[in-house]
């Protein structure tokens, strides 16, 4: 694949410069056996600098993760070389098994197979709190 054209897959565009690696990790793109291209610090007329991720396969990605990391990013689904769908990204109300609670006193640290769930408690400042211990996500 060349980095600027894919036939069938997903392009995550307009990622805030520097955020691509975090998205790559949280979306578990490292676990895929398809071609994934990360472009960092691409010159953008709108944003100055931006990151782009291209995935050369039509996979299921959790848009909530993108909304959590970078709600200004855009997600484009490419089919047969043309743009098939553009997804609207929103800051998600809940995050399930996206990030982990770091509070050592939280029940999530001991209870078997408990989902790590965070709730958006302050939209303006994008504050998420663990639903169990209510400690802020870092």
């Amino acid at each position: 694949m060349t980095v600027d054209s894919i036939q069938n897959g997903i392009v995550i565009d307009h990622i805030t410069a520097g955020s691509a690696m975090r998205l790559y990790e949280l979306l578990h793109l490292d676990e895929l056996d398809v071609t994934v291209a990360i472009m960092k610090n691409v010159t953008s007329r709108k944003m100055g600098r931006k990151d782009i991720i291209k995935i050369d396969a039509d996979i299921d990605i959790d848009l909530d993760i993108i909304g959590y990391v970078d709600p200004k990013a855009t997600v484009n689904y490419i089919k047969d070389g043309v743009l098939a769908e553009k997804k609207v990204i929103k800051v998600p109300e809940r995050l399930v098994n996206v990030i982990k609670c770091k509070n050592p006193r939280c029940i999530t640290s001991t209870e078997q197979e408990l989902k790590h769930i965070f709730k958006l408690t302050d939209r303006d400042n994008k504050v998420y709190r663990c639903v169990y211990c209510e400690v802020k996500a870092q």
Partner: protein
Amino acid sequence: MRSIIDISDLSVEELQELIGVAEDIIANPEKYQDACKRKKLATLFFEPSTRTRMSFEAAMYELGGNVISVSSAASSSAAKGESVADTVKTVSCYTDIIAMRHPKEGAAYVAAQNASIPVINAGDGGHCHPTQTLADLLTIWREKGRFDNLTVGFCGDLKFGRTVHSLITALARYTGIKFVLISPQELKLPSYIKKDVLKRNGLQYVQTMDLESVMPELDILYMTRVQKERFFNEEDYLRLKDSYILNPEKLKKAKPDLCIMHPLPRVNEISVAVDDDPRACYFKQVLNGKYMRMALILKLLKEAGTI
């Protein structure tokens, strides 16, 4: 299934309703002596807290109910690694309502999500302890007859003191409340509570390190213990634990109808000499706790259709 994890799970109207029931229990105890006949309360205490457990058990007995008690983490299935979820699913098969104490924050929420009967949080680590707040609220109500237009001082460990955070959250819903926050620099009220609770509700508060200077203006003085287990090192604990000790000398400038409260047990933050002062309300608080637990058990069992 309705459970109570945090004091904010109860609306202002519901609090008033619980207070009404508690006052009726105090006035007419015989009316309630069979209210929970043949019903069972499970007290699941994954960490020891004798007084809270006794309060729940006394509450259930006075309602004519029975108690099944698991009081030691070491002897229970939790020691064998059974999850909170599995434990409460099992306990739901045997009893009608659960009061649970657990060292981990959020454990009560997990219990409530998995139980098929009501769960009352009897303390989940440093997180919440709503029935203590119910005891505090009934005490304020019985001593002052109102929840508005009060100057409430909190003294001691305001950083880790969950009873303080919870009572501030509960009182923040009333009007004309002024908070006076008295603590050493290291144990100040966390900024998120100041921001999310006090500033958001437009409440007045002052912070000070000096108890004596603010004493004359207080209607309520809520003392707290400086708990060793909330500290990460012994030196800090030893340095700070004696910072604020209430004694008759310091009370000289206080209002004649001041209400002195403490969640108990005390270590030494209130001198024993204060106990004889009519303004000392901390043992009344203990009794009020039992009445509010009775009112809460009744409410939840009624809502669940059990009684």
